[in-house]
C-alpha cells in the first residue's frame, strides 16, 4: 500500500512535533507548516493526501481562510481537511467554515476539538483517508500515475 502523506498546519511547534512523531510511527509521511504561506508551499511541493489544519493561527480566521481557499481552488478541493478547532464550541467553528464556504457540505467528522488525543486524531485520519480513497479522488489530478510511483 502506498505511503499516505499528511500535512500538519499549526503554529504550536510542540503540538506539530508531537503529531508529526506520532503519525510517522504509524507509517505516514509527514510535512509541517506554521502558517498559511508555508502551508501553500508545502501543498505544492509535498502534495499531501490529507491536511490537519488548526483554525486559529496568527489571527483568528487564518485557518478558516486557508480551508475555504483550498476547498474552492480546483486541484486542492478534493483533499480531505481535518480541522482542529481551538474554540470552546466546536459547532461554532463548523458553522464559520460552512458560512465561509457558502453552502458546500463539510462532513461533521472533519472537526476535532483541541486538545486532541493523538490516538483519536490518527483514527480520524484513517477514516477520512479511507473515505477519500473510496471516492477515488487521486492526487494529483493530471498525474494519474502517482499511485504507481510507490
Amino acid at each position, binding site marked *: 500500500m502506498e505511503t499516505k502523506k499528511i500535512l500538519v498546519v499549526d*503554529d*504550536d511547534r*510542540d*503540538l506539530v*512535533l*508531537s*503529531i508529526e*512523531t*506520532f503519525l*510517522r*510511527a504509524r507509517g505516514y509521511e509527514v510535512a509541517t507548516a*506554521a502558517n498559511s504561506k508555508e502551508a501553500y508551499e508545502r501543498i505544492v511541493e509535498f502534495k499531501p493526501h490529507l491536511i490537519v489544519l488548526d483554525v*486559529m493561527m*496568527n*489571527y483568528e480566521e487564518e485557518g478558516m481562510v486557508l480551508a475555504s481557499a483550498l476547498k474552492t481552488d480546483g486541484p486542492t478541493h478534493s483533499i480531505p481537511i481535518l480541522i482542529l478547532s*481551538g474554540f*470552546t464550541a466546536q459547532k461554532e467553528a463548523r458553522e464559520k467554515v460552512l458560512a465561509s464556504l457558502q453552502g458546500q457540505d463539510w462532513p461533521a467528522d472533519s472537526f476535532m476539538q*483541541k*486538545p*486532541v*488525543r*493523538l*490516538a483519536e486524531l490518527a483514527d480520524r485520519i484513517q477514516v477520512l483517508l479511507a473515505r477519500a480513497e473510496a471516492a477515488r479522488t487521486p492526487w494529483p489530478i493530471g498525474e494519474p500515475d502517482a499511485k504507481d510511483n510507490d
Partner: protein
Amino acid sequence: MTDAYSSRARILVVDDEYGVRSAVRQILELEGYEVAEAATGAEALALLEEQALSEEQALSEEQAAQPTPTQFDIVLLDYRLPDTDGLSLHKEILARGHQPMTCMITAYADIDLACAATFQGIDFFLAKPFLPDELLEVIETLSERLQARLEAERLRQEHEANLLALAEEKTQTRLLISSLRDAVLVVNREGEVVLANEAMTDLLGTTEEALLLRPVGDVLRGTPLAWLLADLEAPRKDRTVGQLLWAERTFASSIVTFRGEDGTARGRILTLSDITEIRRLAMEKERFIRTMVHELKSPLGAVRSLIEVTTDKSLGDDLDSYLPLLRRAEERIDGLVRLINDLLLLSRSEQAQAPGEPQLVEIPPAVSAALAALAEPIAARNLSASAELEPDLPSVLLPPDDLDLILANLLGNAVKYNREGGSVKLRGYRQHQWVRLDIEDTGVGIAPENLDRVFTEFFREKRPETQELEGSGLGLAIVKRLVERAGGRVQVSSRQGEGSTFTVLLPA
C-alpha cells in the same frame, strides 16, 4: 380648629343704650360667653384695636408676623349710634381688617335696612325688642356659622397647600425625568405623546413641544423605534423589554403600562437606556475569557500530545529519544504556571485599591534590583544595560511591589525583545509634577498600527522574530494598570526594527 374657637365665642355689644347693653351682657355671660361693651362707634373700634394689640403682644416674635386673629368672634351692632350708624361702623370694622360675625340690632326694623345690611355682609338681623332666647338663638347660629366659616377656611388653606405640594411634586418629577440620562417617552391611553424628556427629543431630533399630543405612530414612524409601536399602541403585556441599535449606539428599551388606582391602563412609558458601554465591556470580558481559555488550553494540549508520543513509544524503546519532547513539556508547564501567576497579578492590579499600603519608594534601589535580576539574560545576549538617574530624583508613592513589577516587566521586555549585542537604557528624571522613566531598547520594535494595542491583555505581535519567545501577553496590561492605579501614565513610542521606548510617568 383651635381650642380658642371650641370655647365660647367672644362677643362685643355696641349700643348707646346702657340698658340694652347690660341686659345683653347679662344674658350672654350667663351662658358662658365673654362679653365686652361699647356705647359708641369710636369706643367699639378702640376696643377692637386694643384687643388686637394685646393679642399681638402675647404672641411670640415669629407668630407676630402672622395675620392678626379675629379678636371678637361676634359683634352685635346697634344701627343708631351717637357718632355713626351701624352700617358705617361695620364698614370701618371690615376696613381695619377685622372679620367678626355681625348681627345688626335695631328698633327700626324695615326691609330696606335689612337689605342694605345683608348686602353689606351683615350676617344676621335682630329686631328690638327681643327675648333672651331670641338673642341666644342668634348668637348660637352665628357661632355655628363662625365655626363653619373657620372650618371652610381651614379646608381651603389645606387644599391650597395640597395643590401647591402637588404642583411642586409635578415640577420635581418633571425635573427628575428631564434630567434622566435615559430617554423617556410617555403616551396616554389615546396613544398621544404627553411627555418626552430631553434625552428622547435629542434622539428624535425635535423638541417636546413639537411632539406633545401627537399620535405616537406619527412621531416614531421612520425612526429605529418604529418596531416598538405595536407595544406602545396595543401592548400584549404590561412590560416588554428589548434591545435596539440607534445612531451606532445600543439601547435597552422598556415599555411599561401604568395604571390608575382602579387598575385601568392610563398610558405607557417607553424608556431607552444607552447600554453601549456596558455591552462593550461585556464583549471585552467575553473576548478576554475566550482568549484566556485559548491561552490555557494550548499549552495543555501541547503537553498532552508530547506525553502521548512518549506513552505511545512513537520513537521506539529508547527513553533518551523522548527527552527533548519531555523537556518541552516541562517548559510548557512552566509557561502555564507563569501565565496563571500573571492572570492573578492582572486581577489584583484591577482592584482600584492597591492591596499593600502605598509608601514613598526610592527609585534607584528598585532599578538596581530589577537590572540585577536580569543579569543572566543580559550577559547571555551580550546586551549593555545602563541606568541614568537624575540626582535627587523624588520618591514616588505606591506599593513597593508595584514599582518592582513595573520595572521587571518593562526591563524584562527590553531585554527579551532586544537584538544580540543591543542595549537597554533607563533614564529617570523629573518632568513638571512627574517622575519620568524612559526605558529604551534596541529591539525589534512595534508596528505603528499595533502601538495602542500592546497594553491590551494577551496582545502579542506575531512576527517571525518573536515567534519563539515565551510570554503571557499580560505583562504590559499589568504595567498599565499598576501605573494608572498610582495616578500615573504609561506610553510607548517605537520604530520598527530599531527599538522601542516605554515611558512611565508617576506623580512626584
